[in-house]
């Protein structure tokens, strides 16, 4: 089986989808001739032509707005927003339009679009290249929100997202593009070529939206994580020696509640982790769901480990990033109560 970085896997997903379905089109800033600032679309314009993969003006509103119109026509646009931090000009188009068109037209018009965007920090990107805005999308009825954590999932989930009949926000943890970063920023990262999840089928396959996966089986405490934090959580388990069960949520909306409930009922403890800021973060939703569905199984209070409620800083990146030490402390707290 070929080995791919997450970038190559994402590119392969678009390649496979464009090859199978000529209504799939790809565009965004620097996406066409150059192939994207992260190279995710490299070669697609040469292969499928300028009318199916092209450069867009610097207007996220325009990119998403035109994608919505294309979807109403019958295309399946898969557009790139260069950084998740840049998505806000398109927010009205996503929230008021893409998410609601099926509902408000009673299915006469639909919006099968995918909006891809690199998310999260860890690359010294400062406040404008590091944010994790997933909660701004999980709050919106009508959207689906996906955050893959490895090349294999990234490809399978992206193909599933492109084939999905509804709009999907596809957040790509950019710190994982080249390897499974575990938050130990002072250590070298294993490249995907040496990781089991770097093995990615060349052809078409899907990973279903809405299904979580257990990344580390454990009996002591459940850690709910997604994206980069999956590896940070695993590192924290190894560092502390606590037998944590790490669940990679993969899709935040719709959420695999059954997998969460099953694990927490088994362990009786829960730690929720994400890079995004704390207040009203997706962790709040997870904590609420766990207490609603597992209250009588909980031995200790649910812990949350997240980015601080500040803008994402530059110099203080590793003080901000919820690394293995902080997650480890939460694991200990969950064990001690």
């Amino acid at each position, binding site marked *: 089986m070929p080995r791919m970085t997450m970038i190559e896997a994402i590119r392969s997903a678009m390649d496979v989808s464009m090859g199978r379905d000529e209504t799939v089109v790809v565009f965004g800033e620097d996406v066409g001739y150059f192939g994207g600032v992260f190279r995710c679309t490299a070669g697609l314009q040469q292969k499928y032509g300028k009318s199916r993969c092209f450069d867009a003006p610097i207007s996220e509103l325009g990119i998403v707005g035109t994608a919505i119109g294309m979807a109403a026509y019958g295309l399946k646009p898969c557009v790139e927003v260069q950084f998740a931090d840049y998505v806000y000009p398109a927010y009205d*188009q996503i929230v008021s339009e893409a998410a609601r068109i099926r509902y408000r037209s009673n299915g006469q018009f639909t919006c099968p679009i995918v909006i891809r965007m690199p998310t999260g920090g860890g690359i010294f990107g400062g406040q404008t290249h590091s944010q994790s805005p997933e909660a701004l999308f999980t709050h919106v009825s009508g959207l689906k929100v996906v955050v893959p954590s490895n090349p294999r999932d990234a490809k399978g989930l992206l193909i599933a997202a492109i084939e999905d009949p509804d709009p999907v926000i596809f957040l790509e943890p950019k710190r994982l593009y080249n390897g499974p970063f575990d938050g130990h920023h002072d250590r070298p990262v294993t490249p995907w070529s040496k990781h089991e999840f770097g093995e990615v089928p060349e052809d078409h396959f899907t990973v279903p939206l809405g299904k979580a996966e257990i990344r580390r089986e454990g009996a002591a405490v459940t850690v709910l994580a997604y994206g980069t934090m999956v590896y940070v959580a695993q590192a924290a388990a190894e560092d502390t020696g606590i037998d944590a069960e790490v669940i990679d949520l993969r899709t935040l909306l719709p959420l695999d509640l059954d997998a969460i409930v099953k694990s927490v009922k088994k362990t009786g403890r829960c730690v929720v982790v994400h890079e995004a800021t704390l207040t009203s973060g997706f962790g709040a939703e997870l904590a609420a769901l766990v207490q609603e569905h597992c209250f009588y199984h909980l031995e200790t209070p649910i812990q949350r480990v997240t980015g601080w409620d500040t803008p994402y800083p530059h110099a203080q990146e590793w003080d901000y990033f919820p690394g293995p030490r902080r997650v480890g402390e939460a694991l200990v707290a969950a064990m001690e109560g």
Partner: protein
Amino acid sequence: MMEYAPLSLHVPEPEVRPGDTPDFSRVVIPRAGSVARPPVDVDPKDIRDLAYSIIRVLNRDGEAVGDWAGTLTDDELKEGLRHMMTLRAFDARMLTAQRQGKTSFYMQHMGEEAVSCAFRRAMEPGDMNFPTYRQAGLLIAGGYPMVDMMNQIFSNEADPIKGRQLPVMYASKEHGFFSISGNLGTQFVQAVGWAMASAIRNDTRIAAGWIGDGSTAESDFHAALVFASTYRAPVVLNIVNNQWAISTYQGIARGGSGTFAARGLGFGLPALRVDGNDYLAVHAVAKWAVERARRGLGPTLVEYVTYRVGAHSTSDDPSAYRPKTESDAWPLGDPVIRLRNHLIKRGLWSEDRHKQMEAEIMDGVVAAQKEAERHGTLHSGGKPSVRDMFEGVYAEMPPHLRRQRQKAGV
């Protein structure tokens, strides 16, 4: 050292306010027939003056004059009159229905009927409009059943969109009418995307985007023009300048630009202004712009100069911000009367036939309303099921919505 006077903020004001005498002397009205009709493949830079003029066909004597005349047959003109009168009668009945509490809200077209009714005639089946809330003429002139419009307005059990939208936010894919948003301006750039898709698929269908004078201030307008211009999308971009954005006069959105149409010039788009109360002129310009789009010559920006005679909506009272008699002073007259006079002038119509048709139309609207009311009105009779509230958010209902529906007990 140079001395500067203190700066002060310029906030534009309309010439008149309540109590003042209406004054439209700033609106320069060229003579009907005076603007030449360029070929559709004209170089946009050769017609930049059209962004500052007004294309008009019907003159004061009810005659159709100039290059832009002659795009419609006699029967089509009579049908056009019927469409506009139908829209007016429909509006009148629905305004009353709103006052009677049969619905929560309504928006009328009084004075602007020609814009959407005449434009619709320039489009072909399969083309797509991305309208605002004041283009119901696209549906009326396209033969969409009035009963279905009313069912939507009443949010009743037969509402084609299941009671999910504010009244008048219709949607009909079959009739080339994209779902109306209510968030202003969003549809303008979507129209460009639809048109780009048609070009991507080597189709021959075209799109039309609609926006009001006030909403041109939204970023969506700018994005639409950028994308339309860059990709030469087969789209007609329509600005309906009815002078008022709720209580805000058009000068607040227009700023220092001479006209709204002139905004297209910086994008290299052909930008035309047309007498929005002149059914013949609207149709001629629409046909020209649609033809350009369909021949792959790219987008056209059209500004319809018209006047919103009524309130913005049933929640608005214009007497609070403009003279009550301002609409009487509007120099472009009434679109229904102008087309009627033209037909009479040509011996195709008479006062009697007009009155007779008015009565016939009203009978039809009343009958449609009776039928719609059999399916319920907002607060009485049949209504969409509560189950419907949970349906259609996604193609397939996800588990969390299923749990919520269960909790709601439906």
